């Protein structure tokens, strides 16, 4: 690189000397011009010649060599050399810019842990995270990065999760808490047991996801790839026609003039500005969004998000906290404690948030050997044999279906009815709170171009409508089984206009099919949930719904920048082609159309990375 710059400086000096020298002696000037050209463009010509032998004719090097040598032949020495010089400077700047953006995106993604402190019998050993196995005990000191997903067994500390979530408030952890790789331990010393191998750990998954996001290309990227394929040959053919046809047809037209014009065509014939800046824009956007805790799996999803017309939310865990608390336990037949115990046992195999809250209310360990014949009836509840008793726990539909009379009075929240050996035993009332930013989220969505904000829930109509009213949703569909949700979504998909898209936001539990079916599936609280990361197109690392309007804003901005670059680059190039065909502009304008446009477009695409506070 340094040698190349030195050569360019030397070449420019010779050029500067050649201009006055030419006035005194044409021969001396000529020699200086040639030395200057060899210094400035010799390597390009050499590469061009080599590439021809490799069977690659129309590459950038060849076109530049042809254009500049062509200029020399028609005695435009200064311009020929200057064009080559500017082209070289442009190339240097371009590779500098690309390197820099690669580096800044790599920094952005610098969440890779370098080592793990593994505890052996009497010592701490520093190991490559790849070599650490599940079950190993690791120690994370203050200031260190959590190397693998683990469970804290000793010590309390504050964890900085901002690299993963964009969330600046540190999280407190204590024994029993799960810690995710990529977070930074702020103050205390924690000892933890590894629960996932490095390749399965959160940090690997995130890096993999962001780095491979490029394989799903947006329409703009597909467009420029196609455009690039035709653009160069077409411009070259036009250049040849321009050089030879008008002088043959028009009386008095000089070959020299028309060849000069056609050289401009060769200079602007590289589609570089587009080919570099558009993918760079999307890549920067993916990097910038991930900094805010939004993982976009491909640039095509920026397009879909920017064109979203309908946003469909799941209720539990998405708009509401999903942390259910038992509010009331009621039984006329057995004691409250016994009712909770039976329910907790029956629900002990389920991961549903409701089951978890019942287990939490029970508070004791469940002896799983006392449970058998567990049968989960999706969307209804659970049947199981607990301590020899046939226990049925579920919603009103389940009771109705089994012909068991149950309490039908009005209750605010989710009701789990319990029947023991076929007779009604009582109910447990569970309620869930709306997240603090849900109201703001819906308001923001409605004030942007979103036509409908809809909620789907498996919950009762009453509970669903209550939430719907509080949040100001367009529509609420309640009492849906997981399969119904897909059907409902299909119906809603038909309501979008031609270009409009539908986004579904869920927490990734039980709604993988819906996530997959939507135009854009957005999973919330993606941290630690593999299923959600797998099924979704966009993963929100935190559980804040307010990231959805933010994601839509980022998408619109990224898409806007990509479009600006496309319009700007194509516009300028076509204008220069047009003007130089008429002989209005010269080679100087053409070199701007090549190098200048590329540099401006690259700088513009950097804007996609900066997601400033204004956007949040």
């Amino acid at each position: 690189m340094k040698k190349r710059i030195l050569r360019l400086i030397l070449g420019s000096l010779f050029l500067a000397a050649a201009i006055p020298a030419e006035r005194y002696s044409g021969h001396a000037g000529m020699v200086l011009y040639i030395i200057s050209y060899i210094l400035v463009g010799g390597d390009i010509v050499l590469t061009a010649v080599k590439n021809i032998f490799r069977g690659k004719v129309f590459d950038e090097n060849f076109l530049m060599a042809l254009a500049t040598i062509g200029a020399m032949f028609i005695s435009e020495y200064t311009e020929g050399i200057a064009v080559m010089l500017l082209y070289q400077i442009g190339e240097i700047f371009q590779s500098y810019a690309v390197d820099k953006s690669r580096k800044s995106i790599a920094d952005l993604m610098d969440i890779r842990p370098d080592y793990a402190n593994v505890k052996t019998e009497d010592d701490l050993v520093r190991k490559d995270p790849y070599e650490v196995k599940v079950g190993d005990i690791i120690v994370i000191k203050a200031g260190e990065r959590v190397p693998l997903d683990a469970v804290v067994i000793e010590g309390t500390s504050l964890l900085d999760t901002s690299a993963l979530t964009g969330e600046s408030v540190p999280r407190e952890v204590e024994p029993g808490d799960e810690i995710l790789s990529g977070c930074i331990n702020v103050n205390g010393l924690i000892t933890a047991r590894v629960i996932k191998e490095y390749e399965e750990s959160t940090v690997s998954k995130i890096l993999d996801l962001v780095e491979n996001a490029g394989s799903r290309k947006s329409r703009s990227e597909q467009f420029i790839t196609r455009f690039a394929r035709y653009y160069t040959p077409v411009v070259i053919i036009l250049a040849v026609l321009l050089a030879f046809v008008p002088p043959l047809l028009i009386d008095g037209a000089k070959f020299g003039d028309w060849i000069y014009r056609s050289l401009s065509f060769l200079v602007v014939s590289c589609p570089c500005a587009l080919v570099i800046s558009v993918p760079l824009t999307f890549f920067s956007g993916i990097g910038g969004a991930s900094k805010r805790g939004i993982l976009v799996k491909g640039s095509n999803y920026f397009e879909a998000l920017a064109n979203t017309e309908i946003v469909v939310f799941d209720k539990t865990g998405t708009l509401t906290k999903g942390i259910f608390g038992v509010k009331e336990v009621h039984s006329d037949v057995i004691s409250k404690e016994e009712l909770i115990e039976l329910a907790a046992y029956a629900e002990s195999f389920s991961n549903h948030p409701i089951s978890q809250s019942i287990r939490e209310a029970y508070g004791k360990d469940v002896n799983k050997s006392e449970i058998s014949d567990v049968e989960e009836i999706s969307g209804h509840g659970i049947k199981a044999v607990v301590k020899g008793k046939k226990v049925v726990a579920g919603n009103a539909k389940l009771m109705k279906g089994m012909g068991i009379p149950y309490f039908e009075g009005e209750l605010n929240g989710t009701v789990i009815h319990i029947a023991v050996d076929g007779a009604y035993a009582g109910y447990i009332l569970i309620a869930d709170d709306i997240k603090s930013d849900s109201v703001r989220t819906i308001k923001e969505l409605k004030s942007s171009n979103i036509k409908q904000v809809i909620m789907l829930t498996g919950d009762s109509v009453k509970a669903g409508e209550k939430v719907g009213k509080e949040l100001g949703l367009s529509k609420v569909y309640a009492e849906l089984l997981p399969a119904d949700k897909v059907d409902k979504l299909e119906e809603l998909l038909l309501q979008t206009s031609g270009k409009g898209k539908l986004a579904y936001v869920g927490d990734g539990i039980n709604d993988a099919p819906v996530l997959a079916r939507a135009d854009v599936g957005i999973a919330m609280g993606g941290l630690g949930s593999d299923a959600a990361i797998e099924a979704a197109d966009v993963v929100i690392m935190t559980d804040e719904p307010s990231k959805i309007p933010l994601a839509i804003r980022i998408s619109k901005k990224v898409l806007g920048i990509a479009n600006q670059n496309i319009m700007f680059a194509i516009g300028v190039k076509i204008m220069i082609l047009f003007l130089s065909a008429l002989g209005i502009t010269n080679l100087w304008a053409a070199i701007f159309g090549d190098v200048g446009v590329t540099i401006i477009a690259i700088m513009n695409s950097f804007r996609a990375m900066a997601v400033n506070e204004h956007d949040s």
Partner: protein
Amino acid sequence: MKKKFIIEGLGCANCAAKMETAIKKLNGVKDASVNFMTQKLIIEGDDELMPEIIKEAENIVRKIEPGTKLKNA
């Protein structure tokens, strides 16, 4: 089988696009993608033909942008 490589020295975005198109056309390749920004090449193809595919891909990469090298990622 999916194979990942890093294309060292990849500096020209148009070349990246050309490499992708050329590798996609190779016998036994189901899908291929070149990410200019991360310099990553991912090839998805038949297991038995993989050694052949890799050799061809190496040639293509070197031919399209001289001075680049294919490295295992």
